[in-house]
């Protein structure tokens, strides 16, 4: 856990410094994507090597579906409420007119 957070923070500091050139970020994103694929295979291995998990995959899928639906609906309702109190786009139009 500590290793993971520390490396994230170290990366943030390095990225925020001026040491990183713009051109490197494109390559970096590609490298990160490759590592992500390796790790996704590891996620799969974690599932595949666990017989109990495989047997319960439909139950997991159902749980995932419900959590996804609830969090999506929650975010829509929350943003709907906020957007009804605060008009984000109108102010943009005014700014554009001022310009």
């Amino acid at each position, binding site marked *: *856990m500590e290793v993971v957070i520390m490396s994230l923070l170290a990366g943030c500091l390095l990225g925020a410094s001026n040491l990183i050139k713009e051109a490197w970020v494109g390559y970096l994103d590609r490298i990160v994507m490759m590592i992500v694929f390796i790790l996704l295979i590891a*996620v799969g291995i974690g599932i595949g090597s666990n017989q109990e998990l*495989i047997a319960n995959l439909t139950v997991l899928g159902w749980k995932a579906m419900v959590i996804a639906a609830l969090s999506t609906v929650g975010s829509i309702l929350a*943003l709907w409420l906020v957007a009804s109190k605060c008009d984000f786009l109108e102010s943009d139009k005014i700014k554009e007119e001022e310009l």
Partner: protein
Amino acid sequence: MKMIGCIVAAVLAGIALGWMLPSFMITEVLDKVVTYILAAMLFGVGISIGHNRRELMKIKEIGLRILLVPLAIAGGSLLGASLASLFFAMSLKEVLVVGAGFGWYSLSSVLITQLYNAELGAIAFLANVFRELMAFVLIPFLAIHIGKIVAIAPGGATTMDSTLPIIAKMTDTSTAMIAFVSGLILTTIVPFLIPLLLAMG
């Protein structure tokens, strides 16, 4: 959509591999190796986040009010996800962590598998894939029937990349810009929020 196919294929390949490998191959050593790979990945993610500092500065120009958009999306997602603990034998922490992926299935599943367990990692993967798929369907509906801004919500962290084109198509330039900034902020929050939630008792 091509990306999601590749990612699902990678996980399926892993499942097949995990099924075939004898269990003694999947040792604590492998687990440790993966943790270091994860640390390397987060170092790279961190550099990207830090580098985005320049783009985040633009928020000041647009106005700090725009921060309400990702805040509402994050708060609503977590609140919605928390309700799931009423239906399932899952702790509040577990459902919150799954909801905290905000649609970023690759990072959330990898983090949760390594820092917690394979079962919750699998749920996080599926839930966040479902969220992105739902976003593709909901964005046009919300943009037409409810409002342009509300159409940003279902995409969560993905509104800075995979769902941005459809938002841009269904709304306008100002909304697409707000969607990008909102996705950027949520993408910045996820790698911090998931370990923090998992570290809580």
